[in-house]
């Protein structure tokens, strides 16, 4: 325990250095702007900026990029409440009560509640990370290829299990990701796969390009389709409103705690933030004494999803660092960053890169506090961004996406790819094919395959190896349960009904 505090103190020293603090501020500001702008979100915003950090010190780079993430999480709430446009999928639940509040002229209250709730959610999640990270790391030291494969399996099965409405499309989307990940040189045998003789395909598909296209271009096409009119409420935040709201907020402490717990749990289990926000909203509604007023402008209805989303978004970084398994597309992009900076995510990261890990954790505390202050003071400014005419914003965002795609490998071909991914993103989004599994499969595909093949080499082709060790057995079983759960839960009531007749 004492050791952790020493490490954290050291981390604060790293994170609070003037240079890193400046980067933190830049990151938060950029993040909020990214969160507010249509077509730029946490995942693709970070993907675009990632190449610019290649030459930076990894600790400074991760501090800036993770702060962009926090900023984007805060920014998403601004558009949800003022414009009824969820900036990120996990802000959807915030619009249910946030927008009605804004229409009643209580935008200030809703924004203050959302920001404060986000901060509380993140804070509780960081506390959890601070104490859990070393434990997870020691635990993860016992991981071999079979255990790693079980974790990947769990990640993918969790995704399928969580998207109960569209399990088939989730699988399809995931398989496309795996397929794309397999393109190029096979690392084990050195054979070319799925390149069909095109030299451009040799190096495979970079997931950063996919993220920029799918989330960036796809999103802006969807925005364009809506007719580009942002009809928003006036944004003003006076100190009086902030203080009044803060006086009111402690009333919802139980709801906050519940939401944070939901968020933390769902963040560690991959696929979390979006279901977490909906779940927290549902739970808050069920337990609230005035549940019938939910959806018509209830402050608690803003607090619950925001707390959960921020908690989930934050805890998603824990499995990313400790196991190399990202819980969200944004965490996946950060994972990509780690690999590019030459850091191997996994338990050893906690031993060999103490400054990096604890600097990041310390920056989560500082970054979220800074973020809260920045958004509370800057709302009118950020809301004004959406009043810039779309005829200027749209081409600028498209140019930023193109430049971002180019800088990943200094290749113009990647811009063409991004364009293709953009159209796929638009069509998939409209047909309800989830995009997150595609990105995660693309990121993890090679690693999952490698760990699978290494396990098979170890066991000489016996699949039983995934049940040999305790950890692997638990993880694999859990994965299978999650996978078949949607099937069982749809078939069981039917069977019961049939039996009753």
């Amino acid at each position: 325990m004492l050791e952790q505090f020493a490490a954290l103190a050291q981390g604060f020293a790293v994170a609070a250095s003037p240079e890193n603090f400046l980067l933190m501020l830049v990151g938060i500001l950029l993040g909020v702007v990214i969160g507010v702008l249509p077509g730029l979100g946490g995942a693709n915003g970070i993907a675009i900026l990632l190449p610019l950090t290649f030459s930076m010190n990894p600790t400074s780079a991760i501090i800036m990029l993770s702060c962009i993430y926090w900023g984007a999480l805060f920014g998403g709430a601004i558009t949800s409440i003022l414009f009824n446009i969820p900036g990120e999928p996990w802000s959807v639940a915030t619009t249910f009560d946030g927008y009605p509040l804004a229409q009643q002229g209580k935008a200030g209250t809703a924004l203050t509640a959302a920001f404060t709730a986000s901060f509380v959610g993140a804070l509780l999640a960081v506390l959890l990370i601070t104490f859990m990270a070393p434990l997870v790391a020691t635990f993860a030291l016992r991981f071999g290829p079979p255990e790693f494969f079980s974790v990947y399996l769990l990640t993918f099965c969790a995704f399928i299990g969580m998207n109960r409405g569209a399990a088939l499309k989730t699988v399809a989307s995931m398989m496309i990701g795996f397929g794309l990940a397999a393109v190029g040189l096979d690392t084990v045998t050195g054979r070319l796969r799925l390149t069909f003789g095109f030299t451009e395909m040799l190096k495979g598909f970079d997931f950063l390009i996919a993220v920029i296209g799918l989330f960036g271009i796809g999103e802006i096409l969807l925005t364009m389709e809506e007719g580009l009119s942002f009809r928003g409420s006036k944004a003003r935040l006076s100190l009086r409103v902030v203080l009044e709201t803060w006086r009111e907020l402690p009333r919802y402490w139980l709801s906050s705690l519940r939401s944070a717990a939901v968020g933390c749990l769902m963040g560690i289990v991959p696929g979390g933030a979006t279901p977490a926000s909906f779940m927290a909203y549902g739970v808050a509604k069920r337990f609230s004494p005035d549940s019938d007023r939910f959806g018509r402008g209830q402050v608690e209805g803003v607090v619950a999803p925001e707390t959960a989303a921020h908690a989930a978004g934050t805890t998603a970084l824990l499995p990313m660092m400790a196991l190399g398994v990202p819980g969200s597309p944004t965490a996946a992009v950060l994972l990509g960053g780690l690999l590019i900076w030459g850091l191997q995510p996994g338990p050893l990261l906690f031993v060999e890169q103490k400054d990096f890990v604890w600097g990041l954790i310390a920056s989560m505390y500082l970054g979220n506090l800074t973020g809260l202050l920045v958004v509370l003071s800057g709302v009118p400014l950020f809301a004004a961004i959406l009043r810039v005419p779309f005829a200027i914003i749209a081409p600028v965002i498209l140019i930023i996406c193109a430049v971002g795609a180019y800088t990943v490998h200094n290749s113009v071909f990647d811009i063409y790819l991004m364009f293709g991914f953009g159209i796929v993103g638009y069509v998939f989004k409209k047909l309800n094919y989830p995009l997150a599994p595609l990105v995660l499969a693309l990121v993890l595909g090679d690693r999952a395959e490698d760990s699978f093949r290494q396990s098979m080499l170890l066991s000489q082709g016996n699949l039983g190896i995934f049940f040999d060790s305790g950890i692997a057995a638990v993880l694999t079983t859990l994965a299978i349960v999650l996978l078949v759960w949607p099937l069982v839960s749809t078939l069981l009531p039917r069977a019961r009904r049939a039996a009753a007749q």
Partner: protein
Amino acid sequence: MTTPEEDHRSAVSYWTMEVVVAIVLLLLGALVMFDAARIGARWSDDGPQAGYFPFYVGLILCAVSIVTLVGSLRRTVLQGHSFVSTGQLQLIMKLLLPFAVYIAVLKLLGIYVASAIFIAYFMLRLGDFPRWLTAIVPAGTVVVLFLLFERWFKVPLPKGPLESLLGLG
């Protein structure tokens, strides 16, 4: 006359898109399986061959696409649902076509010149801006872009004839 936004006629039905995408994914899965089989998708003495993993990925993709396809074919109600209306499609094309032209010429003109033209085009076409603004915004954006990438981050972006004329390339 109706403005594009008011044109709510369906350009493509949801059903058609659902079916087309399922067929495309089915073909994609088949393609993956075919290529995987070519490089060997069996189990050799030293573990799975290079095509083993992709083969099953392709197989699963084919399987779920067939189920989606059959499911959609039966849900003909979706024929009445619009995937995208004519007006929406026109709006999207207003954005997508210039963007396609932009990325097609950016290698030739360099990213800076192409970007300036791209923004100026949008401002002229979609907005109602004063002349001076239409000149300043694109130029300003490109200068900022240039300073940011070439000077600050030292990441060179594709340049064209204008830059070499100015001695910046």
